[in-house]
């Protein structure tokens, strides 16, 4: 049987650390919120159990999800197409022909800049979602933007 293979390249290994920090902060906020709610609202018998559960779940998410995501996130650019894969529980693969690429966007959030990482977003004329590659090494991302712009330029038409 034939099946769609994973795209060739992984994102930067540093992305894992960035995602750990990112989800860590989010998990901390959620755990704090749930903790306050448990202390204030939960009946006495359940209070500490619920608090412990909230902390365990949030910690597990912050530890597991970035690693899982790193295993899934991949990208590949061929002569005629862009192919990305992202997600963790739900895996989303997107393929767009080079001739339909409309814009190539390079973005760096504050956290990404700290880790020297960047996000490249490739949009087509479709409203059903762009192709996004997160956690690329900054230099790799810049080279990729160059390559995509050059290849997309070679094709005439308005890409619709």
């Amino acid at each position, binding site marked *: *049987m*034939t*099946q*769609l*293979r994973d*795209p060739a390249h992984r994102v930067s290994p540093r992305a894992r650390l960035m995602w750990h920090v990112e989800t860590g902060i989010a998990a901390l906020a959620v755990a704090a919120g749930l903790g306050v709610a448990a202390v204030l609202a939960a009946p006495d018998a359940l209070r500490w159990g619920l608090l412990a559960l909230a902390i365990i779940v949030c910690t597990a998410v912050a530890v597991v999800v970035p690693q899982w995501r790193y295993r899934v996130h991949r990208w*590949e650019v*061929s002569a*005629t*197409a862009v*192919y990305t894969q992202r*997600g963790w*529980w*739900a*895996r*989303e*693969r*997107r*393929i*767009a*022909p080079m001739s*339909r690429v409309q814009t190539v966007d390079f973005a760096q959030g504050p956290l990404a800049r700290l880790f020297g990482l960047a996000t490249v977003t490739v949009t*087509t*004329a*479709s*409203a*059903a*979602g762009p*192709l996004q590659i997160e956690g690329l090494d900054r230099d790799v991302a810049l080279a990729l933007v160059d390559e995509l712009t050059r290849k997309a330029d070679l094709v005439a038409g*308005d*890409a*619709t």
Partner: protein
Amino acid sequence: MTPTETWQRLDPRMLLVHPIKEVGRFLPVLIGLLIAGGASGGGPWALLGVGLPVGLGVVRYLTTTYRIHDGRVELRRGLLQRHTLATPVDRVRAVDLTASPIHRILGLATVVIGTGSVASDADERLELDALPRDEAARLRAALLRTGQAYAVQVLPDGTALPPPPAVEQVVARFSPRWLWYAPFSGTVLVAAGAMLGVAGQLSQSIHVRITEADLAAITEALVLVVAAGIVVLAIVLAVGGYLVTNGNFVLARQGSAWHVRRGLLTHREISIDVARVAGVSLGEPAALRVARGRRVHAIVTGLGGEHHASSSMLLPPAPRAIGYDVASAVLGDATPMSAPLLPHGRAAVTRRYTRALLGALPFVLLPVAGVVAGGPVWLLVVALLPVGVALALAVDRVRSLGHAFVAGHVVMRSGSALRSRDALAAGHVIGWNQRATWFQRRAGLVSLAATTAGGKGRVHVPDVPVAAAIALAEAATPGLVGQFLEEVR
């Protein structure tokens, strides 16, 4: 040179439309002014209230001009904040002529030029309010080249002959029988919801004193009568709304454009460039299927998003046969709408059942918990109801699920209550999205979407077997997905 090459003004008759409309908009203010003015005797203020809307209309008339020049439509407007909008004529996807009753009395029409820009800001819309009807039609012909207004024939002796306007072929025309489908189109729910909302508002603003005697007067019969009244009223509203929006409906092909004309009071004429029609969506929601009706929307490149939904309508709820005729005529081939679809196999069927039954689970657990807590045993019968509904839904969803590649079109069908059969021309597929959760990966399934530049941005179908998803993509866009394949045992 066509008459639109120089800067044109709107029709002066629009000076009458705008004051009437603006006065309508200012009516609450006006009434307030008159009452306040009557009380305090402040005459000049009341005058300002009347003069301002009229003045705004005059300013709009004086400052708005348009032309077609050098292959571009240009529109200038605004007094202090001058806007100049320009768009290439070959980017025009659709032209929308609307005439409210006021416009119709004056022989005018508003022109909205659809370019597929994502800007929904009113400032960025190419809108001309208003032109004389025949001038509006001429402008539309020039923009969509339905009458080949640009390809002026030149005779050997040098005189130019205007080309004959293309003949209009009518594909579907409104018939009073179509009103039968109005109550099955979902507008009934909207109407009922609106009525409940209004009732809620009223009951809040009007203080009704309810005594115990009143409560005692509420019998089962009264409840039934009120419920029946609401249902009847909702149906009447749905039929009336259908008649007002879709009365006089005509779908016709003229040259390289589709024209949709509809509306009993406010006339709307929507014209779509044939080259921009990427596909067709045949709407077959469950209620409409029961009534043996269908509706049709076009998937138009550059016309996407919610506020274009009404522009891309090709057929309101109408008899099934007409629905198939319209879809076939627009696609240029009947097979994408009639060909049998490939089923998705046992794993997809299992998923339909598990998902429907899991959705029903809370509604089953609730009565069961009630019985356990000491409730009457007949509650268990109530628990069977959601199971029945879920099973019926699952059966219908299994029957709906399918895809195919037919006559150059990617065809996908899914859903139950909102089922639709979408056909997208292979040339308009601009990418593939494959989404699979951990459960789907275990079952060897993937949710497949073919992306496109129009409509909702994609046509999609859940739970396609992995191999079938690749086969469909390879049939529609050879080599695109094929370069990323691998062999597995």
